[in-house]
């Protein structure tokens, strides 16, 4: 083992990034196939378009940027640690809570039927014309219909479990969020944020995920920043994380004061980022570093 002084390490690390960039493992592995338990094939490549992603040649799931061990972990429903959160969500689905004395199941029945397609179309505009993420809909049901005392925190264990469970009911379906009509102004807002440089490092989402997808940032392999695999089990956090949790992390990494999870800005950004993945399969819950 070698111990180096901090200053030199940083300078040499920058130099070595340049060296590592040339390595073959930088680009997405377009030969990798996402097959769950040897049976269920999920689409990880989708055509791009002129409206949403004119600058992407093709849309790639984050799965294609991961190493074989991480991919293997996702392809086995038993070994996938995210399934623990899905199971927890399944338990919550049939748990009675609130003054109405009902569980999700009492109204929504079998989630496989009632929740099919929900993840694929989130976020979407509600009956009052406001753009809501899945978390908003869940809490709305819980507080106004179930009479639950408290909404779940955006990144709470229960919310992550429930969104994981609901997301699984759309697994395999193509992402298909609406960006027209009432959603249009939110989508524009999200698009503007995507191309805005934030923070001391003055980086926009596009700088990394559009201009540099496939390259290395230090030792991370940059993907297109798709959210078709969320909620995802992050190896780093050793638990399932939400989309907004990742947005917070990304903007914080540009050394900016970040927006809050559940903020209108992030919901708009979520719509825009989701649309960039239209056509990719919802992965239910994925595994990412």
């Amino acid at each position, binding site marked *: 083992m070698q111990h180096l002084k901090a200053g030199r390490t940083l300078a040499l690390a920058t130099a070595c990034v340049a060296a590592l960039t040339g390595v073959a493992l930088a680009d997405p592995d377009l030969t990798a196939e996402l097959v769950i338990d040897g049976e269920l094939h999920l689409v990880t490549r989708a055509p791009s378009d002129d409206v949403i992603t004119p600058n992407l040649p093709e849309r790639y799931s984050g799965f294609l940027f991961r190493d074989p061990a991480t991919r293997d972990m996702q392809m086995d429903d038993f070994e996938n640690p995210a399934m623990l959160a899905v*199971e927890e969500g399944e338990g919550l689905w049939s748990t009675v809570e609130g003054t109405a004395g009902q569980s999700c199941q009492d109204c929504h029945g079998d989630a496989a039927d009632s929740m099919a397609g929900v993840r694929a179309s989130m976020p979407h505009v509600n009956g009052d014309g406001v753009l809501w993420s899945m978390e908003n809909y869940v809490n709305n049901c819980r507080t106004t219909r179930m009479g639950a005392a408290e909404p779940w925190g955006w990144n709470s264990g229960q919310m992550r479990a429930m969104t994981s469970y609901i997301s699984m009911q759309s697994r395999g379906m193509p992402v298909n969020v609406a960006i027209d009509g009432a959603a249009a102004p939110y989508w524009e807002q999200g698009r503007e944020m995507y191309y805005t440089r934030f923070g001391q490092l003055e980086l926009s989402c596009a700088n990394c995920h559009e201009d540099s997808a496939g390259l290395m940032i230090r030792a991370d392999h940059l993907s297109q920043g798709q959210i078709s695999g969320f909620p995802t089990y992050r190896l780093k956090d*050793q638990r399932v994380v939400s989309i907004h949790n990742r947005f917070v992390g990304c903007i914080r990494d540009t050394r900016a004061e970040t927006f809050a999870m559940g903020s209108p800005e992030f919901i708009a950004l979520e719509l825009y980022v989701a649309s960039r993945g239209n056509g990719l399969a919802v992965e239910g819950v994925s595994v990412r570093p």
Partner: protein
Amino acid sequence: MTDVRPRIRLPRSAAAGDSIVVKTLINHDMESGQRRNSAGEIIPRQIVNRFTCEYAGVMVIDMELHGAISANPYIEFEAVVPASGDFVFTWYDDNGEVYTSTESFTVA
């Protein structure tokens, strides 16, 4: 700690005397005792420190775990199944709790 839910995966079938692959997964934070909270204080260690598996009353594996085992411990090993019987899996938590799971297995 939320509900602890062990998961077990056994092959669908095997012949008597086969060595089968057993996969286990349990949700547990495995707080190593190395991390600090935002106030700078060490977060106390709380891990699953031991895992055992028996089949038909015979010990298969006895594993001692330390803080370097990742959260939601995944443990895979092989067991011999001379005849049909029950697998008993046990996880021992630092806090004294014990989690168990039993799965019966039938040989062809």
